[in-house]
């Protein structure tokens, strides 16, 4: 098992640690609903240092990125971030990721911890462009400071004008006395805030400064449990749950990051799905009758026929009801369609709703 730089700190804070993607990670510090609400209403800090970071450098870096990712990275300008995915040759997705453009010859890719090796091998295998690649995952920590008060906390620690930074932009700079920090207006909670990339040697200093600055906002450490309920309320896909090696981004509602303005790996396949219409679609649903959907529960129609499977589900702390996502046959994908979730051999009524849920 691997350990993030701040592992001992999380343990000393009383976090419940679990193995996630091969890392020992804090899933909960004290109370999931409190952690969830802290992020929705004020500010919380996630240590997501398990995430992977690759540097791609060279004159043909963009060509490589255009080949392996589904979104159109030529639209990026310096300091901009793009959500994208890596299609495989079998109609599915190797991973979803963020693409950061430093300049026309240098990009960072931020990938899921569980897929670091798989992504590295996949991209390397397609690197016939002589692009220099560097895996920085083991040297970098990532603190996601999320919530409406995150900006007020972080502004105390840096000269960079954070309010001037648009969503999905980033810059290098200094923060809390740490040099060479990446300040990124991104996140996986839909609550606003920033993600701070810092070298491992500075992680503790950054953490302490953030918590000192956040005292007046009752800042709290927040675990992966709350991260999951927060992202699901916003309908963000989780790789391994809602998207995987077999799902097309078109089926997953990720048509907006799948651009046919340029060729990419297996683009013809996804284009055909887009043109012919997907036979199954990822939808959001909420429970009408009482019950909490969970991953792998079956989705049924009114006659009891199986029409799909739940990929993510939880009780939403903000909405106080069961919500979930899952793939259903296209005929059942329209908003307001009545569906049933099989919970302990009972069909519990739900309906398809628009995402985000919140």
């Amino acid at each position, binding site marked *: 098992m691997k350990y993030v730089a701040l592992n001992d700190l999380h343990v000393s804070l009383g976090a419940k640690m679990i193995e996630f993607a091969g890392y020992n990670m804090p899933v*909960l510090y004290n*109370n*999931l*609903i409190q952690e969830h609400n802290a992020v929705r209403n004020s500010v919380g800090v996630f240590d997501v240092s398990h995430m992977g970071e690759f540097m791609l450098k060279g004159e043909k870096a963009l060509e490589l990125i255009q080949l392996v990712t589904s979104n159109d990275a030529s639209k990026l300008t310096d300091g901009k971030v793009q959500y994208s995915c890596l299609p495989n040759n079998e109609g599915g997705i190797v991973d979803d990721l963020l693409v950061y453009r430093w300049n026309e010859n240098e990009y960072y890719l931020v990938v899921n911890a569980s897929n670091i090796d798989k992504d590295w091998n996949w991209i390397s295998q397609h690197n016939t462009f002589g692009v220099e690649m560097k895996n920085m995952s083991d040297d970098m920590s990532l603190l996601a400071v999320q919530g409406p008060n995150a900006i007020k906390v972080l502004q105390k620690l840096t000269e960079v004008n954070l309010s001037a930074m648009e969503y999905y932009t980033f810059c290098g700079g200094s923060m809390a006395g740490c040099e060479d920090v990446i300040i990124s207006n991104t996140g996986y909670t839909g609550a606003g805030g920033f993600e701070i990339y810092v070298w491992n040697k500075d992680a503790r200093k950054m953490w302490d400064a953030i918590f000192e600055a956040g005292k007046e906002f009752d800042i709290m450490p927040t675990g992966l*449990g709350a991260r*999951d*309920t927060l992202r699901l309320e916003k309908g963000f896909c989780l790789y391994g749950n809602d998207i995987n090696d077999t799902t097309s981004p078109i089926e997953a509602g990720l048509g907006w990051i799948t651009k046919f303005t340029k060729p990419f790996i297996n683009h013809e396949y996804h284009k055909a799905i887009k043109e012919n219409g997907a036979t199954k679609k990822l939808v959001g649903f909420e429970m009408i009758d*009482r*019950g*909490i959907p*969970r991953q792998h529960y079956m989705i049924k129609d009114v006659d009891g026929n199986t029409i799909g499977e739940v990929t993510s589900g*939880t*009780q939403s*702390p903000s909405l106080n009801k069961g919500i979930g996502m899952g793939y259903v046959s296209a005929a059942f994908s329209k908003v307001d369609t009545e569906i049933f979730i099989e919970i*302990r051999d009972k069909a519990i009524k739900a309906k398809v709703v628009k995402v985000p849920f919140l």
Partner: protein
Amino acid sequence: MNFPENLLYTKDHEWIRIEGDVCYIGITDFAQKELGDIVYVDIATKGKTVNQHDVFGTVEAVKTVSDLFMPLTGEVLEVNAGLDAAPENVNNDAYGEGWMIKATIANKNEVASLMSAADYKGLVH
């Protein structure tokens, strides 16, 4: 953590309070802490006789779901209706307002299989 002396316990982390021929059943302080915020207690066995160790319901926390096992064979006489609107009572008052069912005791011999507070404490520590 609190494990009252006047209750009996199971290794499945339930408590039992015997009152004459009937008993009250809930989950322990340890169990509620492990589960976290409880958001739904689903018990559909009212009026049914459930054998010892069989499932009489489920308890749902935000992230997990867990079965509830009958500590003693008996008929489920009553389900705590208060938990429908306030499932968090299981977290806040596991041995009081958080009780889950009232049941008959069909086989008094089974009581001997339950654990004392001291034994249960030994199990979870």
